[in-house]
């Protein structure tokens, strides 16, 4: 089963491309957000409180370039394909997608008219998983902030 997700906004171009190129022996389930395009051959729903169970059930995931879905896909250890949503404000997804694909963390595909080729290539892609082992300092930062003097003390020194 292939699971496609577009996040909280809409991404009609991706859903349309998947709907038109679906193969006979294939099941595609899509989360379409606020999209206006109604797919005919693929199963879809709009929103879900948590997509974790869908990621678990899927063999392959297609995701938009939103940071939330990208990192959930990275954690799910499933093969996945990332497609940039060009209609979001300021095209801010490009920055993260370029960085992640340059370092081999994800496989990105731009050509929506030829998306089957992207899916074939993404299935053979072996990702670099180093990114999930990075250190986090937020708890320390928070404690430091609460301990520093109240008002007027320049914590940046």
């Amino acid at each position, binding site marked *: 089963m292939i699971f496609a997700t577009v996040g909280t906004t809409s991404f009609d171009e991706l859903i349309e491309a998947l709907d038109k190129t679906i193969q006979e022996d294939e099941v595609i389930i899509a989360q379409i957000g606020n999209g206006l395009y109604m797919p005919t051959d693929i199963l879809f729903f709009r929103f879900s409180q948590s997509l974790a169970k869908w990621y678990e059930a899927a063999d392959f995931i297609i995701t938009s370039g939103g940071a*939330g879905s990208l*990192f*959930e896909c990275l954690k799910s250890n499933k093969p996945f394909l990332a497609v940039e949503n060009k209609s979001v404000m300021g095209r801010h997804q490009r920055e993260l997608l*370029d960085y992640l694909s340059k370092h081999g963390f994800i496989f990105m595909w731009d050509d929506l008219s030829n998306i089957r080729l992207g899916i074939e290539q993404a299935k053979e892609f072996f990702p670099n998983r180093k990114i999930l082992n990075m250190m*986090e300092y*937020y708890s320390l*930062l928070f404690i430091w*902030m*609460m301990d520093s003097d109240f008002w007027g003390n320049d914590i*940046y020194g």
Partner: protein
Amino acid sequence: MRICAILNGGGHTAETLALVEKLHNVEPYYMVDAFDHLTISKVKKNRKLYVLSPRKRNTDSKIISGFRLVLTMILTSLYFMRYRFRAVVAVGGTLTVPVMFLARFCRIKTMFVESVARVYTLSMSGHILYGKVDVFAVQWVTLAKQLKRSVYGGIVL
């Protein structure tokens, strides 16, 4: 200690929830847009602070969003009086800038984390809040190298 976390929908919500989970000894209250049902469903029942999101970008008039902003500011200051938060944390989005400035005015500590989607450039709320909050954390080393007054915190998701 009681803290206030601002949820702005979509990827921002996922990042803020992950950030709050990493902080120790905190009792988080979540500020949510009263019409954002998906975000509301992700938060515990008695930990919600309802406000109105001031501006949905490019979709509504300036007069209505100005009215919403004033109402949100009044509601937020009432919440601040009622709950006496020690800190406010946020990961960007519409509500961030006005609430953070109000928190500074009320002498509450503020922690801003730049969204994980920003690798080389700052977001709009990041631009406005840079140097004006107690902790300005970024999630990528590439961005931390450019900005002298930011702290590198690692990927929060």
